[in-house]
Structure formats: C-alpha cells, structure tokens
C-alpha cells in the first residue's frame, strides 16, 4: 500500500491519532493556564508503571497503563490538595510533585533493572524516551479508543467545560460540580498521557499536549474552532513527525515529532491571523500611521492658524512635532499622496480643502477628548479609545455638548475657515 510497510502504517496511524487527541484535550489545559499540569502528569505516571511491573513481574500493557493512570491521577490530586489546603502556589506544587514522582519512578526503575533479566523485559527505557517504531496494532486500537472516548466526553460536556474554563465562579453559581468537572478534564489529560507515553515517552508527551492548543490560539477566537484546529494540528504533527523520522532512520521519532510541533508553533506565532506577531505588527503600524497622520494634520492646522499664513514650512511642523526627520518625511509624503497636503515651493506645504475638513475634525476631536479626560478623569480607563477620533460613541450627547460649549467659551473651539 503506497509502498509503505504495514509497520510504518501502524505507527503513522497511532501517532497521528494520539496527536489529534492530545491536541484537543491539551487545549483545555493551555486555556486554563494549566499547561504544566500535563507535564507533571506524565512524570507522575512513571512510578505507577514501575509498581505495576513489580507486582506482576511481567510486561503486561494494560496493567502498566492502569498503574500509570493511577499514579498520574494521584499526582494531580496531590497538586490540587497542596494548592487548596496549604499556602504553596500552583507552580511550586507542580514543580515539587513532578520532581518527587519522577525521582521515585527512576529509583523504582533502577530496582527493576537490578532484578534478574528485569530491565530489558520491562522495556522501561521506552517509557522515558518513547519507542515509536515498536508500536503494535494493539497500541493503536488503545489510542483510538482513548481518542474516541475523549472526543465523546468533550462533545457531551462542551458547555460545562467552556463555563468552568472561562468563569468557574459562574459555573459554580449554576450549581455545577466544578471541582469534579475539573478532575474529569484532568483525567482526560491523564488518559492521553498514559496512552501516549509508550509512543513518544514521558518527557515529550507534554509537548504534544501543549503545542497544538498553543499554536491554534493564534488562528481563532472561538473555543469550538480552537479545539478542532488543535486536533488537526496534533494530527499533522504526529503524521509529519513520524514520516520524517521513518524517512531519516537515524533520527528518533519522539524528538522529531516535537520538533515538527515546534515548527508549526513558530509558524503560528509569526503568521497566525488572530494574534500572530506579523498580523500584530501590521496592525500596530497601521494604527501608528493613523495617529501620526492625525498629529501631522493637527500640527499643520495649528501652525497655519497661529501664523495666519496658509503656507507653512517643514521646519515649522518639525518644531511643533519634534519627530525624527524620517518619520516626518514619511508622513508628509503620505499626507501629500492622500490629498490632505500639497507642496507649495521648496520645503513648504499648505492644507488642501479635503485636508482642511479632516484637520478641523481632528483638532475638534482631540480637544474634546482632552476636555473630557480633564473633566471626567475617573472615566479615562473605561471610555478613552485612541483609535476613535470622535468621542460621540463613548459619551452621551449631553456631555459632548457641554464640553463643546466650554471649549467655545475658552476660545479653544476650532472654527472652519470660511
């Protein structure tokens, strides 16, 4: 089939499904600022795996996964108890639990390796760094079941999970068991961790949980969309990462999968449409441009008015604005192209008729804003919006009229040239 070996297909299917599931479930952890909890969970799973082996003395997959799940959940409960009943902060609690449980796990795994023929048989190394190539059909079926179960829980409990993630107090006021819902979400993370650990290892599974959700946030402002996108991202990361490591056999799968995720995350960080850096820089530039143009027109209007001369020089503007020469040159150029200013002689400009209208609106708007902020300082944070020229949207007409009248009385209300 497509020249791919059966083994490779199994691994591709397993890791992609795991990525999709972990991506979707992990999104909740990311949104709730609990990203590190997944990390703690995966580390806390190790002692459970070891204990299961020590009890049964054989590599029994379901038993070891159950052990992993149990000790992972215990780890999470210890974290939540530490936060709830002591003064330890969440980050410190996560750090301590992660360290203690992982240390315990490593110690237990040394004991197992000391048993006769123990280490190799237990395959414990693969739990730490992952052994993707060794994935079997049974593993994939397990991942599929876990993924479908996770999907079902998220679909059924969507509105509960949305409420407890966005506004836990409100959810509690509706009478929902927020603590237990929280535990359910964390158990989903635990299941994803447990089925994922054999594939990518204890250390790297947390990357698979966190990166798709974190990357998806750069593309959408909707939770439902974010969950879908994170699932697709996780799927793609698993697929591409596994394919790359299968093509270049020297490279182990776990790190390659994580590096693939990193690449996707970086692309999202830079180019994401919602809050990607590039989109934000463009937005910021545009905003600065608008503000700069308004300042320039205001300076032009004020220079013209105070000198009583329609013509003004670049130096006059420079004296008022104190901008870097380049910024002034760029904005003068833009205002000229935009039809607000026209050059008259070397280094001199005048307002066009369109420029007059715009400049008058700008000066009026600015002075009203200033008067408003002086008269109602306590409302500055609530109402002031630099992007908006007119204050009409933000204050009542009565206040706008009152402020206008005050400005007129003080002789600061600009009148149009007649």
């Amino acid at each position: 089939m497509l020249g791919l070996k059966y083994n490779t297909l199994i691994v591709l299917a397993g890791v992609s499904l795991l990525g999709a599931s972990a991506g979707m479930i992990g999104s909740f952890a990311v949104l709730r600022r609990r990203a590190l909890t997944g990390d703690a969970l995966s580390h806390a799973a190790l002692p459970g795996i070891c204990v299961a082996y020590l009890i049964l003395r054989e590599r029994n997959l379901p038993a070891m996964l159950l052990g992993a799940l149990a000790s992972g959940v215990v780890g999470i409960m210890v974290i939540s108890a530490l936060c709830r009943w002591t003064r330890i902060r969440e980050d410190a609690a996560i750090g301590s639990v992660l360290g203690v449980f992982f240390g315990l796990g490593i110690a237990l795994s040394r004991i197992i390796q000391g048993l006769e023929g123990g280490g190799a048989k237990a395959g414990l190394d693969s739990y730490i760094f992952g052994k993707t190539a060794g994935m079997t059909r049974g593993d994939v079926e397990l991942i599929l079941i876990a993924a479908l179960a996770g999907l079902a829980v998220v679909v059924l409990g969507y509105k509960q999970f949305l409420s407890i993630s966005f506004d836990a107090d409100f959810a509690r006021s509706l009478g929902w068991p927020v603590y237990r819902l929280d535990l359910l979400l964390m158990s989903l993370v635990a299941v994803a961790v447990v089925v994922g650990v054999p594939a990518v290892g204890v250390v790297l599974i947390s990357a698979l949980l966190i990166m798709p959700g974190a990357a998806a946030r750069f593309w959408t402002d909707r939770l439902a969309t974010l969950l879908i996108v994170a699932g697709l991202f996780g799927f793609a990361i698993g697929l591409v990462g596994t394919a790359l490591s299968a093509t270049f056999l020297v490279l182990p799968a776990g790190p390659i999968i994580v590096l693939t995720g990193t690449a996707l995350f970086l692309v999202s960080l830079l180019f994401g449409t919602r809050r990607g850096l590039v989109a934000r820089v463009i937005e910021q530039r545009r905003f600065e441009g608008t503000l700069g143009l308004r300042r320039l027109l205001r300076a032009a209007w004020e220079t013209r008015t105070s000198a009583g001369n329609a013509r003004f020089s670049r130096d006059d503007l420079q004296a008022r604005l104190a901008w870097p020469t380049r910024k002034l040159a760029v904005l003068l150029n833009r205002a000229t192209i935009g039809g607000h200013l026209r050059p008259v002689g070397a280094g001199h400009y005048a307002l066009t008729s369109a420029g007059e209208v715009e400049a008058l609106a700008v000066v009026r708007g600015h002075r009203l804003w200033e008067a408003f902020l002086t008269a109602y300082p306590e409302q500055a944070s609530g109402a002031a919006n630099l992007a908006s020229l007119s204050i009409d949207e933000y204050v009542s007409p009565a206040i706008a009229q009152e402020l206008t009248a005050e400005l007129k009385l003080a002789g600061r209300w600009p009148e149009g040239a007649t």
Partner: protein
Amino acid sequence: MTILDIHDVTVAYHRKPVLWDVDLALARPQLAAVIGPNGAGKSTLIKAVLGLVPMASGRVEVFGKPVGQVRRRIGYVPQRESVDWDFPVSVLDVVLMGTYGPLGWFRRPGSVERQTARDCLAKVGLAQYEQQQIGQLSGGQQQRVFLARALAQQADIYFMDEPLAGVDAATERMIFAVLRELRETGKTIIAVHHDLRTVPHYFDHVVLLNVRLVAAGPTATTFTPENLRKTYGGRLALLDAAGEAVRAGSGPS
C-alpha cells in the same frame, strides 16, 4: 416568605474572619446596595450566599429554601477582573452561558436560547457586538456583557459584584435603567457598590458592612452619616464624599 435570609454567617480565610456573624433578611423585592470599605467582606458575602466560598458557620436561605434547591432562580454577575478576557469566546457565547442552567447537563443552547441571548444583548445596547471576541470590548462594554448574561438567566434574585466598576457615566445610567426595570417587575437585586455618591440616587435599600453587619434598611433611614461613620471608621475623605451625597438628596428623585 422572606426572599433572602442570611443567618449568623461567618467566613474566615486562614482563621482571619472576613465576615463575622452576619444576619440579614430581605422580606420584599429590593434594589439593594452592599457598601463598606475595602476588605469589608462585600464580595465574600455574595460568594458565601451562592456557596462559592465555604462558611465557617451560618445558614443561608433564598425564597425559604437552601440555595442548592433554587439555583435556577438566582442570577450572578461576578467581578469583571475574575475572568480571563483573552479567552476564545464571543460576546454571544458568554451571554448564552446565562441560559445553561435550565438546559440541564447535555442539551445545547438552540434557537430559543440564542434569541433570548440576543434580546438580552440588545437590552444592554450591545447587539452589534455579538460576534466580537470579548477582549476587544472596553471595560464598560465587558461589564454590560456580564449584565446581559445575568439577564439571560431570567432569575428572580440577582447578586452582582461591583457591576459598575470601571464604567463610564453613560453606561452607569444604562445599567441602572435595566436594574430599575428588573426591580419594577418584582425582582430583587443585591449589588456590591463602591461609589457612595450615587447610593441615594440609585438604591432603595442599603446594607452597610464592615466584617460585621453595621446596619441594613431603607436608604432614606439607614444611609445616614452616623451609620457611615460606624462603617468606615476614621476614613475621613470618604466620609466627606458621603456627607455630600446625603445632603445632595436622600432617596431617589
């Protein structure tokens, strides 16, 4: 039947009392303000009533029943700072949360709920913002989104935690027009309020709180300089503002 009956409520954080033996009863629908200095336990009182913080002792009944049995009749507006406004939800999504209570566990909001949510958004003047991500709104608009969500709960009693924090004058008037309308249809509103100047103008009932209950009753007889002095102690600047407010007019005009 009393609408709200708070009996001997004590709340403590790390053994420090935040509320001490608070008794409070509302027999008739009111538009009530909870006022008191910072750290007086105003928010905690609301949270204790709703069961959001554990009570060290005491009992709360709403409409004669334990809160757990009447949650569908209770609306809640948390403090604006209590949520992450960067969260990926739209304005309409947030207001729809108000309709979740009666939907039970698995039913999703449908067209009926959507219509309710849109009506509530229109009531607070945010109809055209329904698709925006909530972080793009101004502080006053965010406060109105929370109010719309509470309206969508179609409750009989509303608890609001500083619904006027950081809003502009126009928004404040709009919010109070909505609250007064609720009050006129027989609902009870209990709002934590911090601006003493506007208390006599907007509220017909006040609850003066400073860890202990200082006084509660109709604004006209309870919102007095003497009671305020007992509530605020030596905080003179605030007292002056309050004195002004009391002189400016006792009772809604």
